[in-house]
Protein backbone atom coordinates (compact mmCIF):
# COMPACT_ATOMS: atom_id res chain seq x y z
CA UNK A 1 0.00 0.00 0.00
CA UNK A 2 1.35 3.44 -0.92
CA UNK A 3 2.14 5.73 1.99
CA UNK A 4 1.99 9.53 2.19
CA UNK A 5 2.46 11.66 5.28
CA UNK A 6 -0.69 13.62 4.53
CA UNK A 7 -3.80 13.07 2.41
CA UNK A 8 -5.59 16.25 1.29
CA UNK A 9 -9.25 15.81 0.32
CA UNK A 10 -10.63 18.44 -2.04
CA UNK A 11 -9.13 19.95 -5.20
CA UNK A 12 -10.16 23.58 -4.83
CA UNK A 13 -7.98 26.56 -4.02
CA UNK A 14 -7.71 25.63 -0.34
CA UNK A 15 -6.64 22.05 -1.06
CA UNK A 16 -4.13 23.32 -3.61
CA UNK A 17 -2.59 25.81 -1.18
CA UNK A 18 -2.52 23.17 1.58
CA UNK A 19 -0.80 20.57 -0.61
CA UNK A 20 1.79 23.17 -1.64
CA UNK A 21 2.34 24.38 1.93
CA UNK A 22 2.83 20.88 3.36
CA UNK A 23 5.14 19.91 0.47
CA UNK A 24 7.33 22.94 1.20
CA UNK A 25 7.60 21.71 4.80
CA UNK A 26 9.11 18.49 3.48
CA UNK A 27 6.04 16.28 3.94
CA UNK A 28 4.86 13.80 1.31
CA UNK A 29 1.38 14.72 0.16
CA UNK A 30 -1.33 13.24 -2.07
CA UNK A 31 -4.49 15.16 -2.95
CA UNK A 32 -7.78 13.62 -4.10
CA UNK A 33 -10.58 15.42 -5.90
CA UNK A 34 -13.71 13.59 -6.99
CA UNK A 35 -14.23 15.78 -10.09
CA UNK A 36 -11.99 18.03 -12.13
CA UNK A 37 -9.74 20.37 -10.14
CA UNK A 38 -11.53 23.62 -9.12
CA UNK A 39 -14.92 22.29 -10.26
CA UNK A 40 -16.62 23.03 -6.92
CA UNK A 41 -16.66 26.45 -5.30
CA UNK A 42 -13.25 27.77 -6.39
CA UNK A 43 -13.80 28.03 -10.13
CA UNK A 44 -17.19 29.65 -9.77
CA UNK A 45 -16.20 32.48 -7.49
CA UNK A 46 -16.80 36.10 -8.41
CA UNK A 47 -13.19 36.77 -9.30
CA UNK A 48 -12.59 39.61 -6.88
CA UNK A 49 -9.20 40.06 -5.29
CA UNK A 50 -10.44 41.53 -2.01
CA UNK A 51 -8.38 44.34 -0.52
CA UNK A 52 -10.60 43.74 2.48
CA UNK A 53 -12.34 47.12 2.18
CA UNK A 54 -15.73 45.42 1.91
CA UNK A 55 -15.26 43.92 5.36
CA UNK A 56 -13.55 46.88 7.04
CA UNK A 57 -16.66 48.14 8.83
CA UNK A 58 -18.12 44.81 9.90
CA UNK A 59 -15.17 42.49 10.36
CA UNK A 60 -11.78 44.18 10.82
CA UNK A 61 -9.95 40.88 11.22
CA UNK A 62 -11.03 39.57 7.80
CA UNK A 63 -10.33 42.98 6.28
CA UNK A 64 -6.77 42.92 7.58
CA UNK A 65 -6.28 39.34 6.46
CA UNK A 66 -7.51 40.13 2.92
CA UNK A 67 -5.15 43.11 2.63
CA UNK A 68 -2.17 41.08 3.81
CA UNK A 69 -3.01 38.28 1.36
CA UNK A 70 -3.58 40.75 -1.49
CA UNK A 71 -0.04 42.02 -0.98
CA UNK A 72 1.35 38.47 -0.95
CA UNK A 73 -0.64 37.22 -3.96
CA UNK A 74 0.42 40.22 -6.02
CA UNK A 75 3.99 39.17 -5.34
CA UNK A 76 3.69 35.40 -5.82
CA UNK A 77 0.97 35.17 -8.50
CA UNK A 78 1.23 38.40 -10.44
CA UNK A 79 -0.08 37.16 -13.79
CA UNK A 80 -3.19 35.57 -12.28
CA UNK A 81 -4.40 39.04 -11.23
CA UNK A 82 -5.71 42.04 -13.17
CA UNK A 83 -4.51 44.55 -10.60
CA UNK A 84 -6.42 47.68 -11.57
CA UNK A 85 -7.61 48.68 -8.07
CA UNK A 86 -11.22 49.32 -7.10
CA UNK A 87 -13.70 52.12 -6.57
CA UNK A 88 -16.32 52.22 -3.82
CA UNK A 89 -19.18 54.46 -4.85
CA UNK A 90 -21.57 56.17 -2.45
CA UNK A 91 -24.73 56.73 -4.47
CA UNK A 92 -27.30 57.42 -1.76
CA UNK A 93 -27.63 59.16 1.62
CA UNK A 94 -26.62 56.04 3.51
CA UNK A 95 -23.40 55.64 1.53
CA UNK A 96 -22.55 59.32 1.68
CA UNK A 97 -22.94 59.40 5.46
CA UNK A 98 -20.95 56.21 5.86
CA UNK A 99 -17.93 57.33 3.82
CA UNK A 100 -15.77 58.84 6.60
CA UNK A 101 -16.29 55.79 8.84
CA UNK A 102 -15.58 53.50 5.91
CA UNK A 103 -12.27 55.18 5.14
CA UNK A 104 -11.28 55.21 8.81
CA UNK A 105 -12.11 51.51 9.16
CA UNK A 106 -10.05 50.70 6.06
CA UNK A 107 -7.06 52.61 7.40
CA UNK A 108 -7.46 50.79 10.71
CA UNK A 109 -7.16 47.50 8.81
CA UNK A 110 -4.05 48.74 6.98
CA UNK A 111 -5.96 49.20 3.71
CA UNK A 112 -4.74 52.35 1.94
CA UNK A 113 -8.23 53.66 1.06
CA UNK A 114 -8.28 57.15 -0.39
CA UNK A 115 -11.22 59.37 -1.26
CA UNK A 116 -11.03 60.78 -4.78
CA UNK A 117 -13.14 63.63 -6.17
CA UNK A 118 -16.18 62.33 -8.03
CA UNK A 119 -14.93 64.10 -11.17
CA UNK A 120 -11.69 62.14 -10.93
CA UNK A 121 -13.58 58.87 -10.43
CA UNK A 122 -15.57 59.61 -13.59
CA UNK A 123 -12.34 60.22 -15.49
CA UNK A 124 -11.00 56.89 -14.34
CA UNK A 125 -14.20 55.02 -15.14
CA UNK A 126 -16.54 56.76 -17.55
CA UNK A 127 -19.39 54.28 -17.23
CA UNK A 128 -20.03 54.59 -13.49
CA UNK A 129 -23.16 56.28 -12.17
CA UNK A 130 -22.74 60.04 -12.83
CA UNK A 131 -24.85 60.74 -9.75
CA UNK A 132 -22.14 59.25 -7.56
CA UNK A 133 -21.81 61.39 -4.44
CA UNK A 134 -18.49 60.18 -3.06
CA UNK A 135 -15.85 57.77 -4.36
CA UNK A 136 -13.11 55.87 -2.56
CA UNK A 137 -10.11 54.21 -4.21
CA UNK A 138 -8.94 50.87 -2.74
CA UNK A 139 -6.40 48.24 -3.87
CA UNK A 140 -8.91 45.65 -5.20
CA UNK A 141 -8.31 43.57 -8.29
CA UNK A 142 -9.60 40.73 -10.45
CA UNK A 143 -8.43 37.15 -10.00
CA UNK A 144 -8.46 34.46 -12.64
CA UNK A 145 -9.99 31.93 -10.25
CA UNK A 146 -8.91 28.92 -12.25
CA UNK A 147 -5.36 29.99 -12.97
CA UNK A 148 -4.62 31.19 -9.44
CA UNK A 149 -5.57 27.80 -8.02
CA UNK A 150 -3.69 26.03 -10.81
CA UNK A 151 -0.54 27.99 -9.92
CA UNK A 152 -0.75 26.48 -6.42
CA UNK A 153 -1.32 23.02 -7.92
CA UNK A 154 1.67 23.48 -10.27
CA UNK A 155 3.86 24.56 -7.36
CA UNK A 156 2.69 21.62 -5.24
CA UNK A 157 3.50 19.17 -8.02
CA UNK A 158 6.90 20.83 -8.53
CA UNK A 159 7.62 20.11 -4.85
CA UNK A 160 6.69 16.47 -5.22
CA UNK A 161 3.02 16.43 -4.26
CA UNK A 162 0.78 13.96 -6.10
CA UNK A 163 -2.56 15.25 -7.39
CA UNK A 164 -5.35 12.85 -8.41
CA UNK A 165 -8.44 14.31 -10.02
CA UNK A 166 -11.58 12.24 -10.69
CA UNK A 167 -10.78 10.17 -7.60
CA UNK A 168 -13.30 10.08 -4.77
CA UNK A 169 -12.46 9.36 -1.15
CA UNK A 170 -14.99 6.76 -0.01
CA UNK A 171 -13.60 5.79 3.38
CA UNK A 172 -11.33 6.91 6.18
CA UNK A 173 -9.43 4.21 8.05
CA UNK A 174 -8.51 4.65 11.67
CA UNK A 175 -7.18 2.60 14.52
CA UNK A 176 -7.19 3.39 18.22
CA UNK A 177 -8.54 6.87 17.57
CA UNK A 178 -5.85 7.80 15.04
CA UNK A 179 -6.02 8.28 11.29
CA UNK A 180 -4.42 5.39 9.36
CA UNK A 181 -5.34 6.00 5.75
CA UNK A 182 -8.06 6.46 3.15
CA UNK A 183 -9.95 4.35 0.66
CA UNK A 184 -10.51 5.93 -2.74
CA UNK A 185 -12.38 5.05 -5.89
CA UNK A 186 -11.14 6.09 -9.31
CA UNK A 187 -14.10 7.45 -11.24
CA UNK A 188 -12.32 6.56 -14.53
CA UNK A 189 -12.11 2.84 -13.84
CA UNK A 190 -14.21 2.14 -10.76
CA UNK A 191 -11.04 0.74 -9.21
CA UNK A 192 -10.79 1.01 -5.42
CA UNK A 193 -7.47 1.52 -3.65
CA UNK A 194 -6.14 2.15 -0.16
CA UNK A 195 -3.52 4.70 0.81
CA UNK A 196 -1.81 4.82 4.19
CA UNK A 197 -1.18 8.19 5.83
CA UNK A 198 -0.67 9.79 9.24
CA UNK A 199 -2.83 12.86 8.77
CA UNK A 200 -5.78 13.96 6.64
CA UNK A 201 -6.81 17.48 5.70
CA UNK A 202 -10.46 17.81 4.83
CA UNK A 203 -10.55 20.73 2.39
CA UNK A 204 -13.85 19.77 0.79
CA UNK A 205 -15.43 23.20 1.35
CA UNK A 206 -19.24 23.01 1.42
CA UNK A 207 -18.97 19.21 1.16
CA UNK A 208 -16.72 19.02 4.27
CA UNK A 209 -19.47 17.59 6.47
CA UNK A 210 -19.97 14.67 4.07
CA UNK A 211 -16.24 13.90 4.08
CA UNK A 212 -16.05 14.08 7.89
CA UNK A 213 -19.06 11.78 8.14
CA UNK A 214 -16.93 9.04 6.52
CA UNK A 215 -15.09 8.97 9.85
CA UNK A 216 -18.22 9.64 11.97
CA UNK A 217 -16.95 13.15 12.75
CA UNK A 218 -19.07 16.29 12.88
CA UNK A 219 -18.37 19.40 10.81
CA UNK A 220 -20.67 22.40 11.25
CA UNK A 221 -20.84 23.87 7.76
CA UNK A 222 -23.53 25.96 6.11
CA UNK A 223 -23.52 25.86 2.32
CA UNK A 224 -24.60 29.34 1.22
CA UNK A 225 -25.50 29.74 -2.44
CA UNK A 226 -24.26 32.87 -4.18
CA UNK A 227 -25.41 33.80 -7.68
CA UNK A 228 -23.49 35.89 -10.20
CA UNK A 229 -24.35 37.25 -13.64
CA UNK A 230 -21.86 38.01 -16.42
CA UNK A 231 -22.60 40.33 -19.33
CA UNK A 232 -20.55 40.93 -22.47
CA UNK A 233 -18.38 44.02 -22.63
CA UNK A 234 -15.83 45.31 -20.21
CA UNK A 235 -17.54 48.34 -18.73
CA UNK A 236 -14.76 49.27 -16.33
CA UNK A 237 -11.16 48.33 -15.75
CA UNK A 238 -11.48 48.62 -11.97
CA UNK A 239 -13.64 46.64 -9.58
CA UNK A 240 -16.68 48.78 -8.72
CA UNK A 241 -18.42 48.32 -5.36
CA UNK A 242 -21.29 50.04 -3.68
CA UNK A 243 -20.29 51.94 -0.58
CA UNK A 244 -22.73 50.76 2.07
CA UNK A 245 -22.86 48.01 4.66
CA UNK A 246 -22.20 44.70 2.81
CA UNK A 247 -25.30 43.36 1.12
CA UNK A 248 -26.36 41.57 -2.04
CA UNK A 249 -25.60 42.73 -5.57
CA UNK A 250 -23.08 45.39 -4.69
CA UNK A 251 -19.89 44.39 -6.52
CA UNK A 252 -19.09 44.50 -10.25
CA UNK A 253 -15.91 42.70 -11.23
CA UNK A 254 -14.59 43.23 -14.76
CA UNK A 255 -12.62 40.39 -16.32
CA UNK A 256 -11.22 40.01 -19.85
CA UNK A 257 -14.10 41.25 -22.04
CA UNK A 258 -16.77 40.67 -19.39
CA UNK A 259 -18.38 42.41 -16.46
CA UNK A 260 -19.73 40.34 -13.59
CA UNK A 261 -22.26 41.47 -10.97
CA UNK A 262 -22.57 39.59 -7.71
CA UNK A 263 -23.67 38.25 -5.53
CA UNK A 264 -26.59 36.94 -3.52
CA UNK A 265 -26.84 34.66 -0.54
CA UNK A 266 -29.28 31.97 0.45
CA UNK A 267 -28.84 28.94 2.64
CA UNK A 268 -29.10 25.58 0.85
CA UNK A 269 -29.14 22.00 2.07
CA UNK A 270 -27.22 20.48 -0.81
CA UNK A 271 -24.25 22.24 -2.42
CA UNK A 272 -24.54 20.08 -5.56
CA UNK A 273 -26.33 21.08 -8.74
CA UNK A 274 -27.09 24.67 -7.72
CA UNK A 275 -28.88 26.86 -10.26
CA UNK A 276 -29.55 30.61 -10.21
CA UNK A 277 -33.12 31.68 -9.47
CA UNK A 278 -34.94 33.95 -11.92
CA UNK A 279 -35.46 36.59 -9.22
CA UNK A 280 -31.76 36.54 -8.29
CA UNK A 281 -30.80 37.31 -11.88
CA UNK A 282 -33.23 40.21 -12.23
CA UNK A 283 -32.27 41.55 -8.80
CA UNK A 284 -28.56 41.46 -9.69
CA UNK A 285 -29.07 43.16 -13.05
CA UNK A 286 -31.10 45.99 -11.53
CA UNK A 287 -28.56 46.39 -8.70
CA UNK A 288 -25.78 46.60 -11.29
CA UNK A 289 -27.64 49.38 -13.13
CA UNK A 290 -27.40 51.51 -9.99
CA UNK A 291 -23.61 51.31 -10.08
CA UNK A 292 -23.15 51.30 -13.85
CA UNK A 293 -26.21 52.61 -15.72
CA UNK A 294 -27.33 50.37 -18.62
CA UNK A 295 -25.31 47.41 -17.32
CA UNK A 296 -28.40 45.27 -17.89
CA UNK A 297 -28.61 46.39 -21.54
CA UNK A 298 -25.33 44.64 -22.33
CA UNK A 299 -25.72 41.25 -24.00
CA UNK A 300 -26.35 38.61 -21.33
CA UNK A 301 -23.61 35.99 -21.13
CA UNK A 302 -24.11 33.66 -18.20
CA UNK A 303 -25.58 33.25 -14.73
CA UNK A 304 -24.32 30.72 -12.26
CA UNK A 305 -24.34 29.81 -8.58
CA UNK A 306 -21.52 28.81 -6.24
CA UNK A 307 -21.74 27.28 -2.77
CA UNK A 308 -19.79 29.14 -0.09
CA UNK A 309 -18.51 26.95 2.74
CA UNK A 310 -19.47 29.06 5.75
CA UNK A 311 -18.13 27.73 9.03
CA UNK A 312 -20.93 27.22 11.54
CA UNK A 313 -24.60 26.41 11.48
CA UNK A 314 -27.34 28.82 10.70
CA UNK A 315 -31.08 28.84 10.88
CA UNK A 316 -31.18 32.14 8.98
CA UNK A 317 -30.04 32.94 5.45
CA UNK A 318 -26.41 32.73 6.46
CA UNK A 319 -25.36 36.40 6.15
CA UNK A 320 -24.87 36.50 9.92
CA UNK A 321 -22.29 33.71 9.84
CA UNK A 322 -18.78 35.11 9.65
CA UNK A 323 -16.59 34.49 6.62
CA UNK A 324 -13.79 33.77 9.07
CA UNK A 325 -11.42 30.89 8.55
CA UNK A 326 -11.90 27.97 10.89
CA UNK A 327 -9.64 24.95 11.47
CA UNK A 328 -11.15 21.97 13.25
CA UNK A 329 -8.85 19.45 14.95
CA UNK A 330 -11.05 16.36 15.19
CA UNK A 331 -8.69 14.91 17.80
CA UNK A 332 -9.95 17.69 20.07
CA UNK A 333 -13.52 18.41 18.96
CA UNK A 334 -14.27 14.76 18.18
CA UNK A 335 -12.50 11.48 18.74
CA UNK A 336 -10.20 11.07 15.71
CA UNK A 337 -6.63 12.30 15.93
CA UNK A 338 -4.94 13.29 12.69
CA UNK A 339 -8.05 14.57 10.90
CA UNK A 340 -8.23 18.33 10.34
CA UNK A 341 -11.00 20.26 8.59
CA UNK A 342 -10.51 23.71 7.09
CA UNK A 343 -13.60 25.85 6.51
CA UNK A 344 -14.74 29.38 5.73
CA UNK A 345 -12.45 31.88 4.05
CA UNK A 346 -12.52 33.43 0.62
CA UNK A 347 -10.68 32.98 -2.67
CA UNK A 348 -8.36 35.83 -1.69
CA UNK A 349 -7.36 34.01 1.49
CA UNK A 350 -6.61 30.58 -0.03
CA UNK A 351 -2.89 30.76 0.83
CA UNK A 352 -3.38 31.65 4.50
CA UNK A 353 -6.03 28.92 4.80
CA UNK A 354 -3.39 26.45 3.64
CA UNK A 355 -0.97 27.92 6.14
CA UNK A 356 -3.33 27.75 9.12
CA UNK A 357 -4.30 24.12 8.63
CA UNK A 358 -0.73 23.10 7.71
CA UNK A 359 0.55 24.64 10.95
CA UNK A 360 -1.69 22.30 12.91
CA UNK A 361 -0.84 19.27 10.78
CA UNK A 362 2.89 19.97 11.12
CA UNK A 363 2.55 20.27 14.87
CA UNK A 364 0.61 16.99 15.02
CA UNK A 365 3.33 15.26 13.01
CA UNK A 366 6.13 16.86 15.09
CA UNK A 367 7.47 18.70 12.07
CA UNK A 368 9.28 21.90 12.90
CA UNK A 369 9.29 23.53 9.46
CA UNK A 370 7.51 26.89 9.21
CA UNK A 371 5.22 28.02 6.39
CA UNK A 372 7.16 29.28 3.38
CA UNK A 373 4.41 29.80 0.82
CA UNK A 374 4.62 33.61 0.98
CA UNK A 375 8.29 33.59 0.04
CA UNK A 376 8.46 32.30 -3.53
CA UNK A 377 6.75 33.17 -6.76
CA UNK A 378 4.40 30.33 -7.70
CA UNK A 379 5.04 28.22 -10.79
CA UNK A 380 3.08 29.36 -13.85
CA UNK A 381 -0.18 27.42 -14.01
CA UNK A 382 0.69 25.63 -17.25
CA UNK A 383 3.58 23.96 -15.43
CA UNK A 384 0.97 21.77 -13.82
CA UNK A 385 0.82 19.97 -17.20
CA UNK A 386 4.43 20.59 -18.22
CA UNK A 387 5.64 18.84 -15.05
CA UNK A 388 3.32 15.84 -15.21
Amino acid at each position, binding site marked *: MDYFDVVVIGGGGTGAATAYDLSLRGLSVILFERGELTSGTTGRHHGQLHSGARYALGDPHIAQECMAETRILRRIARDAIEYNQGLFLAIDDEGEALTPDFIAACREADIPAMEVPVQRALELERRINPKTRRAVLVPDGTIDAYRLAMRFFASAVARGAVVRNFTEVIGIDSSQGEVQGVRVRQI*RTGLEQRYACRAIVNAAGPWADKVAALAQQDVPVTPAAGTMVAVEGRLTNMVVSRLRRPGDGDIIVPQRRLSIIGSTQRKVDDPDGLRPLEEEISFLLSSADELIPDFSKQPFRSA*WTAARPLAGRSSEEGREISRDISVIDHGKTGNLKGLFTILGGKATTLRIMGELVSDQVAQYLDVDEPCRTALFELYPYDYYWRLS
Partner: protein
Amino acid sequence: MRQSLRILRGTGDDVLHYVYEVDLPSGSSVLDALEYIRTGSVPDLMYRHSCHHGSCGTCAVRINGKEVLACLTKLEDVAGTVPTIEPLQAFKHDKDLAVEPGSLFRRLPKDAAKLRISEWSGGEIKRDPDHEENEVRPGGGEINRDPSHEANQARPGGIEHFVRFEDCIECGACISACPVTKQNWSEESLEMLPFVGPAVLAAIHRESINNPEWREEMLELAKQPNGVAACEKHFNCSRVCPRMVAPGRHIEELRKELL
Protein backbone atom coordinates in the same frame (compact mmCIF):
# COMPACT_ATOMS: atom_id res chain seq x y z
CA MET B 1 -38.03 22.49 -19.95
CA ARG B 2 -37.44 18.86 -20.79
CA GLN B 3 -34.55 18.11 -23.10
CA SER B 4 -32.88 14.89 -24.24
CA LEU B 5 -29.13 14.77 -24.82
CA ARG B 6 -27.12 12.08 -26.59
CA ILE B 7 -23.80 11.81 -24.76
CA LEU B 8 -20.69 9.85 -25.67
CA ARG B 9 -19.61 7.70 -22.75
CA GLY B 10 -16.69 5.39 -22.19
CA THR B 11 -13.02 5.34 -23.03
CA GLY B 12 -10.75 4.04 -25.80
CA ASP B 13 -12.60 1.83 -28.28
CA ASP B 14 -15.21 1.06 -25.67
CA VAL B 15 -17.51 4.01 -26.28
CA LEU B 16 -21.26 4.27 -26.76
CA HIS B 17 -23.77 7.09 -27.02
CA TYR B 18 -26.34 7.24 -24.22
CA VAL B 19 -29.48 9.34 -24.25
CA TYR B 20 -30.38 11.17 -21.03
CA GLU B 21 -33.33 13.42 -20.29
CA VAL B 22 -33.08 16.50 -18.09
CA ASP B 23 -35.76 18.79 -16.68
CA LEU B 24 -34.39 22.27 -16.09
CA PRO B 25 -35.66 25.87 -16.11
CA SER B 26 -35.34 27.75 -19.38
CA GLY B 27 -32.07 29.61 -19.66
CA SER B 28 -30.12 26.59 -18.41
CA SER B 29 -26.94 25.61 -20.21
CA VAL B 30 -25.65 22.31 -21.51
CA LEU B 31 -23.22 22.36 -18.57
CA ASP B 32 -26.18 22.71 -16.19
CA ALA B 33 -27.64 19.65 -17.91
CA LEU B 34 -24.41 17.69 -17.37
CA GLU B 35 -24.46 18.73 -13.70
CA TYR B 36 -28.10 17.64 -13.47
CA ILE B 37 -27.23 14.21 -14.85
CA ARG B 38 -24.12 13.78 -12.68
CA THR B 39 -25.75 14.88 -9.44
CA GLY B 40 -28.74 12.71 -10.29
CA SER B 41 -28.60 9.29 -11.86
CA VAL B 42 -25.04 9.15 -13.28
CA PRO B 43 -22.57 10.18 -10.55
CA ASP B 44 -19.59 8.91 -12.55
CA LEU B 45 -20.23 10.99 -15.68
CA MET B 46 -16.86 12.58 -16.48
CA TYR B 47 -16.54 16.08 -17.92
CA ARG B 48 -14.30 19.01 -17.10
CA HIS B 49 -15.72 22.27 -15.74
CA SER B 50 -14.80 25.10 -13.41
CA CYS B 51 -16.03 28.68 -13.85
CA HIS B 52 -19.45 28.24 -15.51
CA HIS B 53 -19.18 31.57 -17.37
CA GLY B 54 -16.73 31.00 -20.19
CA SER B 55 -13.56 32.20 -18.49
CA CYS B 56 -11.63 29.07 -17.60
CA GLY B 57 -11.74 27.10 -20.85
CA THR B 58 -12.24 23.68 -19.26
CA CYS B 59 -15.70 22.70 -20.54
CA ALA B 60 -15.17 22.75 -24.32
CA VAL B 61 -17.01 19.88 -26.02
CA ARG B 62 -18.44 19.17 -29.48
CA ILE B 63 -22.18 19.51 -29.90
CA ASN B 64 -23.38 18.02 -33.17
CA GLY B 65 -19.77 18.15 -34.34
CA LYS B 66 -19.15 21.80 -33.51
CA GLU B 67 -16.78 22.94 -30.77
CA VAL B 68 -18.47 25.05 -28.07
CA LEU B 69 -18.19 25.81 -24.37
CA ALA B 70 -20.87 23.74 -22.60
CA CYS B 71 -21.41 26.55 -20.08
CA LEU B 72 -22.30 29.12 -22.74
CA THR B 73 -24.54 26.88 -24.86
CA LYS B 74 -28.17 27.24 -23.83
CA LEU B 75 -30.52 24.28 -23.96
CA GLU B 76 -32.84 26.51 -26.04
CA ASP B 77 -30.16 26.54 -28.74
CA VAL B 78 -30.64 22.79 -29.23
CA ALA B 79 -34.36 22.54 -28.43
CA GLY B 80 -36.41 20.34 -30.73
CA THR B 81 -33.44 18.05 -31.44
CA VAL B 82 -31.52 15.44 -29.50
CA PRO B 83 -28.03 16.94 -29.72
CA THR B 84 -24.99 14.67 -29.77
CA ILE B 85 -22.37 15.73 -27.22
CA GLU B 86 -18.84 14.41 -27.65
CA PRO B 87 -15.35 15.20 -26.36
CA LEU B 88 -12.92 17.39 -28.28
CA GLN B 89 -11.01 15.77 -31.12
CA ALA B 90 -7.21 15.83 -31.45
CA PHE B 91 -6.66 15.70 -27.66
CA LYS B 92 -6.04 12.38 -25.93
CA HIS B 93 -9.42 11.12 -24.78
CA ASP B 94 -9.73 10.56 -21.04
CA LYS B 95 -13.26 9.28 -20.43
CA ASP B 96 -16.80 10.32 -21.39
CA LEU B 97 -16.56 14.02 -22.30
CA ALA B 98 -13.20 14.65 -20.62
CA VAL B 99 -9.97 14.95 -22.58
CA GLU B 100 -6.43 15.42 -21.31
CA PRO B 101 -5.65 19.09 -21.96
CA GLY B 102 -1.90 18.82 -21.26
CA SER B 103 -0.79 18.51 -24.89
CA LEU B 104 -1.87 22.12 -25.51
CA PHE B 105 -0.33 23.53 -22.32
CA ARG B 106 2.96 21.78 -23.04
CA ARG B 107 3.12 23.34 -26.51
CA LEU B 108 2.24 26.93 -25.70
CA PRO B 109 5.23 29.30 -25.60
CA LYS B 110 6.84 28.79 -22.21
CA ASP B 111 6.57 31.61 -19.65
CA ALA B 112 4.59 33.83 -22.02
CA ALA B 113 2.79 36.87 -20.60
CA LYS B 114 -0.79 36.20 -19.50
CA LEU B 115 -1.67 39.87 -19.06
CA ARG B 116 -1.95 42.59 -21.68
CA ILE B 117 -2.45 46.32 -21.52
CA SER B 118 -6.18 46.94 -21.33
CA GLU B 119 -7.55 48.76 -24.34
CA TRP B 120 -11.01 49.17 -22.78
CA SER B 121 -11.90 52.65 -21.74
CA GLY B 122 -15.53 52.16 -20.84
CA GLY B 123 -16.91 54.72 -23.28
CA GLU B 124 -20.41 55.23 -24.57
CA ILE B 125 -22.00 52.49 -26.62
CA LYS B 126 -21.67 54.53 -29.80
CA ARG B 127 -18.94 55.44 -32.21
CA ASP B 128 -17.04 58.57 -31.31
CA PRO B 129 -16.88 60.60 -34.54
CA ASP B 130 -13.79 62.49 -33.37
CA HIS B 131 -11.89 59.30 -32.82
CA GLU B 132 -12.32 57.06 -35.82
CA GLU B 133 -9.75 54.65 -34.42
CA ASN B 134 -12.14 53.77 -31.62
CA GLU B 135 -13.77 50.49 -32.29
CA VAL B 136 -17.16 49.58 -30.89
CA ARG B 137 -17.72 45.88 -30.35
CA PRO B 138 -21.08 44.18 -30.34
CA GLY B 139 -20.51 43.52 -26.65
CA GLY B 140 -20.75 47.22 -25.88
CA GLY B 141 -18.12 49.29 -24.19
CA GLU B 142 -15.36 50.71 -26.28
CA ILE B 143 -11.97 49.44 -27.32
CA ASN B 144 -9.60 52.34 -27.59
CA ARG B 145 -6.26 51.53 -29.14
CA ASP B 146 -4.87 55.06 -29.09
CA PRO B 147 -2.51 55.32 -26.10
CA SER B 148 -2.52 59.12 -26.25
CA HIS B 149 -6.31 59.31 -25.94
CA GLU B 150 -7.31 61.00 -22.67
CA ALA B 151 -9.34 57.97 -21.61
CA ASN B 152 -6.19 55.89 -21.75
CA GLN B 153 -4.22 58.38 -19.71
CA ALA B 154 -6.46 58.32 -16.65
CA ARG B 155 -5.44 55.72 -14.12
CA PRO B 156 -4.84 55.70 -10.42
CA GLY B 157 -1.41 56.37 -9.00
CA GLY B 158 0.88 53.37 -8.71
CA ILE B 159 -0.59 51.76 -11.83
CA GLU B 160 1.40 52.00 -15.01
CA HIS B 161 -1.39 50.72 -17.23
CA PHE B 162 -4.77 49.18 -16.74
CA VAL B 163 -4.24 45.52 -17.57
CA ARG B 164 -6.43 42.58 -18.46
CA PHE B 165 -5.97 38.89 -19.10
CA GLU B 166 -5.20 37.73 -22.62
CA ASP B 167 -8.33 36.64 -24.49
CA CYS B 168 -7.28 33.05 -25.11
CA ILE B 169 -8.57 30.75 -22.37
CA GLU B 170 -6.78 27.72 -23.85
CA CYS B 171 -10.01 25.75 -24.18
CA GLY B 172 -8.70 23.71 -27.12
CA ALA B 173 -11.74 24.32 -29.35
CA CYS B 174 -9.56 25.52 -32.24
CA ILE B 175 -7.20 22.54 -31.96
CA SER B 176 -10.18 20.18 -32.18
CA ALA B 177 -11.76 22.05 -35.09
CA CYS B 178 -8.64 22.53 -37.22
CA PRO B 179 -8.55 19.96 -40.05
CA VAL B 180 -4.73 19.88 -39.79
CA THR B 181 -4.22 19.41 -36.03
CA LYS B 182 -7.17 17.04 -35.87
CA GLN B 183 -5.19 14.68 -38.17
CA ASN B 184 -2.16 14.51 -35.91
CA TRP B 185 -1.74 16.15 -32.54
CA SER B 186 -0.72 13.13 -30.53
CA GLU B 187 1.96 13.60 -27.92
CA GLU B 188 4.09 10.68 -29.17
CA SER B 189 4.89 12.52 -32.39
CA LEU B 190 6.20 15.59 -30.55
CA GLU B 191 9.41 15.77 -32.63
CA MET B 192 7.53 15.35 -35.86
CA LEU B 193 4.36 17.29 -35.00
CA PRO B 194 3.16 18.45 -38.43
CA PHE B 195 1.40 21.60 -37.15
CA VAL B 196 1.67 23.29 -33.74
CA GLY B 197 -1.92 24.48 -34.08
CA PRO B 198 -3.95 27.70 -34.06
CA ALA B 199 -3.97 28.38 -30.29
CA VAL B 200 -0.19 28.01 -30.14
CA LEU B 201 0.45 30.33 -33.08
CA ALA B 202 -1.99 32.89 -31.67
CA ALA B 203 -0.09 32.77 -28.36
CA ILE B 204 3.24 33.13 -30.20
CA HIS B 205 1.93 36.21 -32.01
CA ARG B 206 0.52 37.77 -28.82
CA GLU B 207 3.79 37.13 -27.00
CA SER B 208 5.75 38.84 -29.80
CA ILE B 209 3.60 41.94 -29.09
CA ASN B 210 3.52 41.73 -25.28
CA ASN B 211 7.23 41.11 -24.89
CA PRO B 212 9.09 42.82 -27.74
CA GLU B 213 12.39 41.45 -26.46
CA TRP B 214 11.12 37.95 -27.27
CA ARG B 215 9.90 38.94 -30.73
CA GLU B 216 12.76 37.40 -32.70
CA GLU B 217 12.49 34.15 -30.80
CA MET B 218 8.73 34.02 -31.34
CA LEU B 219 9.06 34.70 -35.07
CA GLU B 220 11.66 31.95 -35.26
CA LEU B 221 9.11 29.53 -33.78
CA ALA B 222 6.45 30.72 -36.22
CA LYS B 223 8.91 30.22 -39.11
CA GLN B 224 9.40 26.50 -38.41
CA PRO B 225 7.93 24.10 -40.98
CA ASN B 226 5.23 23.12 -38.47
CA GLY B 227 4.42 26.77 -37.77
CA VAL B 228 2.62 29.24 -40.03
CA ALA B 229 3.57 27.32 -43.20
CA ALA B 230 1.62 24.27 -42.04
CA CYS B 231 -1.64 26.21 -41.69
CA GLU B 232 -3.96 25.38 -44.59
CA LYS B 233 -6.21 28.42 -44.04
CA HIS B 234 -9.43 26.59 -43.29
CA PHE B 235 -10.23 29.21 -40.60
CA ASN B 236 -12.30 26.74 -38.58
CA CYS B 237 -10.27 28.03 -35.60
CA SER B 238 -11.69 31.53 -35.84
CA ARG B 239 -15.20 30.21 -36.42
CA VAL B 240 -15.30 28.12 -33.23
CA CYS B 241 -13.28 30.36 -30.89
CA PRO B 242 -15.58 31.28 -27.96
CA ARG B 243 -13.46 34.26 -26.88
CA MET B 244 -13.01 36.28 -30.10
CA VAL B 245 -9.30 35.44 -30.25
CA ALA B 246 -9.61 34.75 -33.99
CA PRO B 247 -6.48 32.56 -34.19
CA GLY B 248 -6.70 32.60 -38.00
CA ARG B 249 -6.13 36.36 -38.01
CA HIS B 250 -3.08 35.98 -35.75
CA ILE B 251 -1.67 33.35 -38.11
CA GLU B 252 -2.21 35.66 -41.09
CA GLU B 253 -0.47 38.52 -39.28
CA LEU B 254 2.48 36.27 -38.51
CA ARG B 255 2.52 35.20 -42.15
CA LYS B 256 2.83 38.86 -43.23
CA GLU B 257 5.63 39.48 -40.75
CA LEU B 258 7.56 36.48 -42.00
CA LEU B 259 7.49 37.60 -45.65
